[in-house]
């Protein structure tokens, strides 16, 4: 009986040793991977915060205003007038479209204009 016990314990010991080594190496690999991911994460975070800083630099009102001023003539920009702001419910109902006859006349004029332009 004791002999069999010995055999079993040797097998068990060998098995345990193999298992422990396996776990050990796996743990090492996982730790390495974790560290790698952590590094990547840190780098990504750093990049994100840098990009955020750059973004806030790009959308600074002072910078945007300078751009607007530079191109205002080309884009025909002008400051907002309070009279241009209103609520949707304050808008008058949309009048009906032009009568069919008028529409035909209108497109004829537009066609003529187009022809002249060319």
């Amino acid at each position, binding site marked *: *009986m004791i002999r*069999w016990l010995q055999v079993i314990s040797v097998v068990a010991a060998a098995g345990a040793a193999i298992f422990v080594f396996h776990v050990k190496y796996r743990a090492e690999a996982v730790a390495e991977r974790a560290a790698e991911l952590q590094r990547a994460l840190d780098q990504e975070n750093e990049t994100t915060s*840098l990009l955020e*800083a750059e973004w*806030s630099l790009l*959308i600074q*009102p002072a910078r945007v205003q300078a751009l607007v001023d530079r191109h205002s003539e080309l884009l025909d920009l002008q400051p907002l007038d309070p009279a241009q702001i209103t*609520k949707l419910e304050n808008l008058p109902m949309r009048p009906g479209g032009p009568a069919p006859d008028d529409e035909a006349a209108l497109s004829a004029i537009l066609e003529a204009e187009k022809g002249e332009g060319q």
Partner: protein
Amino acid sequence: MRTDANAPASTWHHAHRAATAGERIALDRRGRWRVAVAMAGFSILFGALAARLLLLGVSAGNAEEEGRNLILTASQARPDIVDRNSETLATDIKTAALFAEPRYVIDPDEATELITSVLPDLDRDRLRQLLSTDAKFAYIKREITPRQQQAIHKLGIPGIGFRVENRRFYPGGPAASHVLGTVNIDNRGIAGIEKHIDTAFLNDLQEAGFANNDVMEPVRLSLDLRVQHVVRDELNEAMERYHAIAAIGIVLDVNTGEVLGMSSVPDYDSNNRDEVLDPDRMNRAAVGVYEMGSTFKGFTVAMALDSGAAKVTDSFDATHGLTVGKFTINDFHGKHRWLTVPEIFIYSSNVGAARLALALGNQGQHDYLQRFGLLGTLKTELPETGAPIVPNMPWPKVTTITMAFGHGISVSPLQTAAAGAALVNGGFYIAPTFLPRTIEEAAAVARPVLRPETSDIMRKLFRLNVLKGSGKRAAVEGYGVGGKTGTAEKVENGRYSASKRRNAFIAAFPMDAPKYLVLVVLDEPKPEMPGRGATAGINTAPTAGNIVRRIAPMLGVEPKAVDPAEDPALALASAR
């Protein structure tokens, strides 16, 4: 199982066959005892191993934490600062610091040559000396650029290394610098909100070892970056147009006391620490104390009406100047007749304001000024604040008179703005803040100063002054702006100078239910063109109007085609 164990067991039995029963029992006992001892020994051994394993497992995390903090303490991490709409106002970016471990530097001369080839502005002799010592650690240069770091790294000098440090970055540069303040090279706040953050919680957090960018929530301010920009932009514009030496602008939410924008130009770039200490770039809005001039007439009229010393329909004698002792007070735009209270306000009559203050008396004036928060030092989150210069009680009659039109008392513009908000918000003094505050929180700190009826009259007077009085140029179509001008002569060599003025305009909108207050102060404005005037109505009023025109749509104030505050205001003017 029996047969399996047969062979060794039979040998054992064979050897001991001769032994007597007694001996066998003794042997058995001894053997068992030995086995027990061996087992105990191994148990202790393995127990010790297991305990050690546990200890390692538990303490491993701590060891890592300690190492992390060690790196971070070099230049402390700070929480980001964002405006009320979460736009970044200040953030940390990582930079490299070049350091040396001089005891590991093999050839100091060669190392010096190599390093100065990349960083030519370093002092060679000092660097050589530094590298020749036996020190463990020394900074060579902090905040170097990534390109410089790369170049030095490629040189591969032993004993030289880099350390990652946090550097504060303000994307807006000077946009909100007086509110934000700045930090020193160790990333510690030395001015403005940055300093407030340190004293309020960051230092404690730092000591406890929890200051880490991953954990810290950004600090939200009440500022609106867009409003802040508009204020600063218009101030710069006005300074140039009217050739002023300085300009101050404040936008305040009258119902919560939140500061949405505060600027004082010339200002500094928070990224440039050297500019911070320049006295010309000081925060005039919170630290400077000035005689606010005729803007004070708003307070005088309000306190006279509120106390019952005068009724809005009462008239006061402004036919002549008012003489007290050897002083005579005159009106700038004299009407030389009896004026009603609204007329005193819109014609900005010194004599009329003086008579109102005299009707109230110095004790009443003192009590109201106290309640308006104009006699004590204003405390906000900003560490920088200016103590007002006020006369001691009981002040003489002549002081009561001059204070009625804003002379003989110097207060900070921010203080004036907070007091001005009380005139139009229903009569509550709400201490200004740079942190977000809800209406409910504001109600908890609000202190009644005026009766609601008085505040109602003041709204109409403010509106009237823009419709008919000195504030006409502040009018913005659709937003019902109301305001009061103030032109104060500056003191030069102990006397009031006729040529140097400090102009102010305090405005609020929309006047039927005021939401925001705008205060503009221009220091020593000159005529825009020769031949024109340089009074507050000509320069600060249009500047305030420009600010309102730009910020009102941003703040969601709905423009109205018909101003509901106009008719009541005009009705007040004709009331007799």
